[in-house]
């Protein structure tokens, strides 16, 4: 039994149990007339069973990984390269409505391009600016996709 299987098996078991509880609250109905909770309950029960099997299975069928946890996750990996784009995506999500599409997208792209080429200011600026303007024309002007205007809403009034 690997620690990896134990952890993931436990998570599925827990998720399945929660699904079963939620389904009971929805009304299971019966075999003759299944209710809205019938199928989710069935799914949850199977998930509990599979989680249990995984927890106590010998191996996951793939090569057994040594070690577990944060170290294994980012062992010899450049984790900053992952974390910064992930945080940028999260930031984009938070800023899109208050700031609007154009400034948020420009900031997002500028940050990512700047990270990959720290020595240059002009190249990230041009890349981000051109991409945002081009996308705006394709999606907003041509395809009429209404992007959030945010603080620039006054321009279209």
């Amino acid at each position, binding site marked *: 039994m690997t620690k990896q299987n134990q952890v993931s098996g436990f998570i599925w078991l827990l998720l399945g149990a929660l699904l079963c509880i939620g389904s009971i609250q929805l009304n299971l109905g019966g075999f003759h007339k299944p209710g809205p909770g019938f*199928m989710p309950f069935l799914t949850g029960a199977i998930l509990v069973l599979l989680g249990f099997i995984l927890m106590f299975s010998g191996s996951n*069928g793939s090569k057994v990984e040594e070690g577990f946890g944060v170290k294994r996750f*980012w062992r010899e990996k450049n984790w900053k390269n992952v974390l910064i784009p992930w945080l940028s995506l999260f930031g984009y999500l938070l800023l*899109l409505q208050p700031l609007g599409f154009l400034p948020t997208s420009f900031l997002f792209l500028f940050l*990512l391009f700047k990270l990959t080429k720290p020595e240059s200011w002009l190249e990230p600026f041009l890349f981000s600016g051109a991409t945002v303007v081009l996308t705006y024309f394709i999606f907003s002007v041509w395809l009429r996709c209404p992007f959030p205007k945010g603080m620039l809403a006054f321009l279209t009034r």
Partner: protein
Amino acid sequence: MEFLGNLSLGYQVAFSAANLLYCFIGVFIGTLVGVLPGIGPAGTISLLLPVSYGISPVAAIIMLAGIYYGSQYGGSTTSILVNIPGEAASVVTCLDGYKMARQGRAGAALGIAAFGSFIAGTIGIIFLMFLAQPLSEIAVRFGPPEYFSLMILAMTIVTFLAQRSMIQAIIMAVLGVALSQIGIDIVTGHSRFTFGLQNLEDGIKLVPLVMGLFGISEVLTNLEESVDRTILQGKIKGLLPNLKDWMDSIGAILRGTLLGFFLGILPGGGVIISSFVSYAVEKRVSKYPEKFGTGVIEGVAGPESANNSASSSAFIPLFSLGIPSNAVMALLLGALMVHGVIPGPLLHRQHPDIFWGTIMSMYIGNFMLLILNLPLIGLWVKLLKVPYRILFPFILFFSIIGSYSIDNSVFDIFVMLLFGTMGYVLRKFRYEFSPLVLAFILGPMLENSLRQSLLVTGGSFSIFFTRPISASCLVIAVLLLLSSIFLRKRKKLTPS
């Protein structure tokens, strides 16, 4: 006579100026994403779904299908020239293709990959043409019990063919079904697992889910390590394989075509497995198996033919049964449904223009791809030189736009980020996402057919075992599960 009439209709549709243009756009983008590692056809099709809403359904499906089969052509270029597969289906092409390139035979490898793909793609389309309609006629007789059992069989095959652990694949499939149940229950109108969020009333949308699992998580994983690309220097010569190359490869191409076609029909079988199986078959039938991996042309011809043939046959379950066999087909299903077209047994009757027009456009697309991949190979080689650090911000940005523009909803970006993060973590645990996506698509159909069957029988499950087609599907599913358990036990007992 009716068949010839349909063919003629298909040609008329496919040869219209607009559809020719969309076919070219599709295969061009397909080759592009095939060449560039880091974004696959599923992510690209998700991204272009909003664009497809503004055009006719037939043009949309012609373009999106072109991306799918076009990416199979492009994937071989990076495998041969850089030793990095552009697509998962081209992994095995690296083994002999890159060795051939290092021996100065890059042209022959690229040439046979393109010609093999063309031959296999064309034969695959001919089979598709002859098989899809008769299968549709049979499928018209399917009721809820048959559909339920067929979907159970489809999910079982996907998990059986999983490249890693079968139990993990089943968990992913069950999770996919669970996720598909979020939203309003269409029978009773109850909200299920929406946590009071209005955005979840319509359920989780496919595009942000696919973009998160396949796009965002892949970018994050790629960013963990800098991929060292050593592109073959010098001019690529001799793209036309010589007579000996043809003699060595023709058997592999034909075997790959047949194998790919049948594996492509199976849910989850698709392009990846067919290329691996083809390589294994070629090695087994070869007079010199020990030379495989050192630059043998059959090692390129077989898998490249198999993955193209599989990309054609993957349309059979979608067009005749309305059941997608992989994530890309699921997206095509979604694209058609947005246009009010329901793929399935009645597609060829209700929308013959889409059915036959798409098939015919695939012939034309294959010709376009041959031209794109041989004379224009220099263009793709230049593109390979674009570093990933420049590419990934674009991929992330276009994923955001793709998710948002489906429903003009910021919530969908959140869903994409959530599944991207989940996908990144699950990749660490070696989980595969194809069973999840397939089950997510099939989930509502599975639930409805189960509930309808039980309502008809007053709660008896016997209907699934007394109707021949349904019973056969369930028996095959059980046999597959048992054989998987047996194979695992035997593997454990056999000393390595």
